């Protein structure tokens, strides 16, 4: 095997190995555990950076291993997978730092960090998977490794949330499995390829292919929280803040959205999807999800629940961009994969800081929090403005491309959806920002626990700060050749290649 084959495996191993070792360490070997975790995260970023460089000069990284005939385990680093892997690698490092600070002195940290690493392993594998089967393997692994994180606290409430999560995720996985096997019996093993590989299928099978498409979308839609499959997501908010952050920004929700992108572009092919007539229904589902999520978010009193409904809505931008299927809309959808991740993780970090430091969990308790925790709330504000889509944040870039993409594809109703959703975003974010900065703080915070010299402990403070700066940079520097936008354009160029 050459280094080009090893590299995808190494990227996965960089979190799998530390994760596995952590289970065998003692609960109190904190230093060693932290070192392993951080080392793994840094190594992963370096490896991914190396791969990014390689792919940009057309280096091919792939590895294949036959399990049973017609059943290959295959990894391949294409442009789309690298976009997702980079996001996962960077946010994993930040979330790990955050989690170390967040979980200081709480029990069962070994279990937490072990599964945390495994969860990232599954996400990375999912990103690098080069056929449906490999994708499925990591998709199910993701379900299994996030369950212990969701129920980490072990309270009856979190156990209930865990059950709900499993109910949805495993049923979705089962439908996915059926769809994948069915597809395989019809057309043979399905490899991901730019522009898709099903266009040449016998027209007699179109009916089956439509049904399979629907099953695949349901299977991925469960994790992507498409309405009405979103029920588990707000409940899963009982998990510790770093888990929610990771769940919403990279791991679970994104895995579903990423799966849908893969199905539409790399399995069916956008053109073929349109031919089958499955794009409009998908766009409608996404639009309904966007509006429903935003609408529900407005009425949530609990901060994390409000963010959860916001995620439901925001992730469907990716699906919407995918379903409109013009080069520009696709660019918007794919780049939102990164942008939403960075912005949402900032919001969750900030929400976690409020809860950990001040005991603030409800939105009406946030009054004056900007004066007590200026850095946290500044990060929160930037990310929230990004969610609304105000320039020059990252969110603006995605929405801009989605909008002009819709116009290009003559789907004018989509612009209406985007505008309505942005208005709703403003309705549920702006009052918070206003209250945080301009209202006077209460006499006493619900449960204040000062941590160190800064407004909170550095491990909790710097991750949201960094992601907030990233939110700005991704927006301001979107035109530069190394930006996420530029990379998304590269992907789109490949997907729409003749």
């Amino acid at each position, binding site marked *: 095997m050459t280094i080009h084959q090893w590299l995808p495996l190494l990227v996965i191993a960089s979190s799998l190995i530390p994760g596995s070792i952590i289970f065998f360490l003692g609960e109190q070997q904190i230093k060693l555990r932290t070192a392993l975790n951080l080392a793994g995260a840094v190594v992963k970023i370096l490896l991914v950076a190396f791969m990014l460089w390689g792919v940009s000069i057309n280096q091919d990284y792939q590895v294949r291993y036959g*399990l*049973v005939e017609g059943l290959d385990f295959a990894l391949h680093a294409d442009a789309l997978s690298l976009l997702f892997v980079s996001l996962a690698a960077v946010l994993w490092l930040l979330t790990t730092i955050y989690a170390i600070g967040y979980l200081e002195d709480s029990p069962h940290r*070994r279990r937490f960090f072990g599964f945390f690493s495994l969860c990232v392993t599954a996400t990375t594998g999912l990103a690098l998977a080069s056929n449906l089967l490999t994708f499925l393997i990591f998709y199910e692994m993701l379900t*299994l490794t996030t369950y212990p994180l969701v129920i980490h606290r072990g309270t009856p409430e979190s156990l209930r949330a865990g059950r709900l999560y499993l109910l949805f995720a495993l049923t979705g996985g*089962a439908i996915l*499995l059926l769809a994948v*096997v*069915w597809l395989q019996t019809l057309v043979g093993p399905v490899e991901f390829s730019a522009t898709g590989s099903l266009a040449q299928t016998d027209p007699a099978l179109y009916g089956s292919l439509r049904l399979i498409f629907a099953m695949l979308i349901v299977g991925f839609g469960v994790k992507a929280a498409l309405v009405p499959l979103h029920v588990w997501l707000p409940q899963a908010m009982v998990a510790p803040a770093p888990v929610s952050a990771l769940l919403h920004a990279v791991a679970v929700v994104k895995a579903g959205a990423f799966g849908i992108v893969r199905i539409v572009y790399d399995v069916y092919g956008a053109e073929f999807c349109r031919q089958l007539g499955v794009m409009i229904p998908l766009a409608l589902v996404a639009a309904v999800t966007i509006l429903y999520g935003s609408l529900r978010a407005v009425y949530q009193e609990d901060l994390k629940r409000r963010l959860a409904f916001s995620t439901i809505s925001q992730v469907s931008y990716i699906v919407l961009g995918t379903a409109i299927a013009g080069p520009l809309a696709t660019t918007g959808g794919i780049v939102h994969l990164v942008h939403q991740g960075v912005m949402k993780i900032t919001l969750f970090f900030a929400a976690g800081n409020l809860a950990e430091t001040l005991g603030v969990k409800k939105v009406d308790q946030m009054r004056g929090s900007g004066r007590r925790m200026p850095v946290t709330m500044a990060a929160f504000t930037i990310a929230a403005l990004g969610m609304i889509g105000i320039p020059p944040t990252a969110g603006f870039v995605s929405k801009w491309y989605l909008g002009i993409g819709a116009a290009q594809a003559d789907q004018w109703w989509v612009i209406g959806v985007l505008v309505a959703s942005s208005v709703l975003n403003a309705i549920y974010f702006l009052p918070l920002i206003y209250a945080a900065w301009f209202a006077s703080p209460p006499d006493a915070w619900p449960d204040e626990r000062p941590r160190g010299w800064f407004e909170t402990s550095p491990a909790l403070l710097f991750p949201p700060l960094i992601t907030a700066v990233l939110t700005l940079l991704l927006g301001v520097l979107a035109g530069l050749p190394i930006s996420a936008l530029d990379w998304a354009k590269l992907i789109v160029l490949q997907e729409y290649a003749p």
Partner: protein
Amino acid sequence: MDAEWAMTGLIMVPLAAAIVVYVTATRFVAAWGVAVAMLQTGLTFSLTRSILQSGPVQVPLGGWEAPLGIPLYADGISALMLIMTTLVGVTSTCYAAAYFSSLQRDPRRSSSQPSIQTFWPLWLILWSALNALFLSADVFNLYVTLELITISAVALIGLAGKAQALVAAIRYLFAALMGSLFYLLGVALLYSTYGTVSWHLLAETVQPDVLTWCAASLMIIGLLLKTALFPLHFWLPAAHANAPAPVSGLLSGLVLKASFFVILRLWFYVFHPVMPASAGWMLSVLGSAAILWGSIQAIRQQRVKLMIAYSTVAQVGYLFLVFGLACEPMGMLAWRGAAYLAFAHASAKAAAFMVAGSLMYMVGSDHLDRWEGIGRREPKLIFTLALAGVSLMGLPPSAGFIAKWLLLNAAIGHGRWEVAAVIVLGGLLAAVYVFRIIGVSLSSAVPMPEVAPVPRMMRWAPLVLAMAVIVGGIVTTEPIRLLEIGAPPIAAREVAP
């Protein structure tokens, strides 16, 4: 020559050891067990390598050819079954050694518990009989080994000594003996028609006539009773759940597979050309019913060991799906799937039972509500249970996933949507009971429970087994290649009605 020694050794070594430890009543009986386990590992390895290199092996024992001698035969599937037996056997041996020595040291327990001196000879005889069964080349020998397995297995359940266990053992013994006698009657009819008991010769001469069908039905009904296929599973849950900790895993993992292996052999190597497709189809309908019924019963149980035992009822159902799916073009997939599932289930189920045994030893009960929060005290054991559960649910990466994938592929390839639906639904139902245990055990609603100490080996042995199941989902090329050696001729057959 190598293979011959290995085959003979696999049967004779545990048998000889059983006699030695029984007659000498040595104090170092566990050491004998471990020594046998090590030898068995080497012999299995050597036999498997020889089969991989030079195909199936036939050995006339002591140089006596059939019909006078007792021939042994090993092909790919026997090798896989032997690997399964060795894997489960070695880990169970280590587990049992720790379990019994810990019992002996604890004066409060030793009075009510089975004596270590009786466990070892019985287990070694069981081991020898299992190996002999997987290596048998004639149907009468299969009868003898089946009986040896039954008798030693029943006695092992009886070791638990409690009335519950005795009742379960007696019920099991009656069911199993009845099954054996049905089988033996079938053998008699076969011999009267064809004048041979070698299944190779039978396979060449078998004709589709009434007497053959009678013989086949009798044999298979008897074996179904022993394999506990729904609705003949009535004896299984109590027997497997009430057996002593190291025994439950052996029963669910290995003993059931023995009679299933005989059905596989007879069906695919002997009777396949003459059996009507509807018969196979009926077996897979029963299998589907078993999956649903077993899983639902497992969900309803309050005792963990009963839950795992009902899960066995369900998993046995998966094994029988192959009989309805074994026709071209996907027949080979189904056959491999079933054989691999037998292996996957044996390891996963034995690991699950060992975990249950360890936790029961610590808590003093296997009632689920007594296990609340136990996972916070014993994360390794619960982690092991979760790994085994992954395979039982058929999720990747695990041997169970590969097996279910193959079965599912065959089902959908034949357009058998109802079977595909049952396969998938069974996995989801398994998730319900597996995660029910895990959820309860991770609950923080109660203070961390106080538990009795347990020997380290009772944590490690199941973990090793569960890891093997996971590895079996990654390293699949060799086992699948093994299954192609001496694979049955699944001829082009019509798809069942």
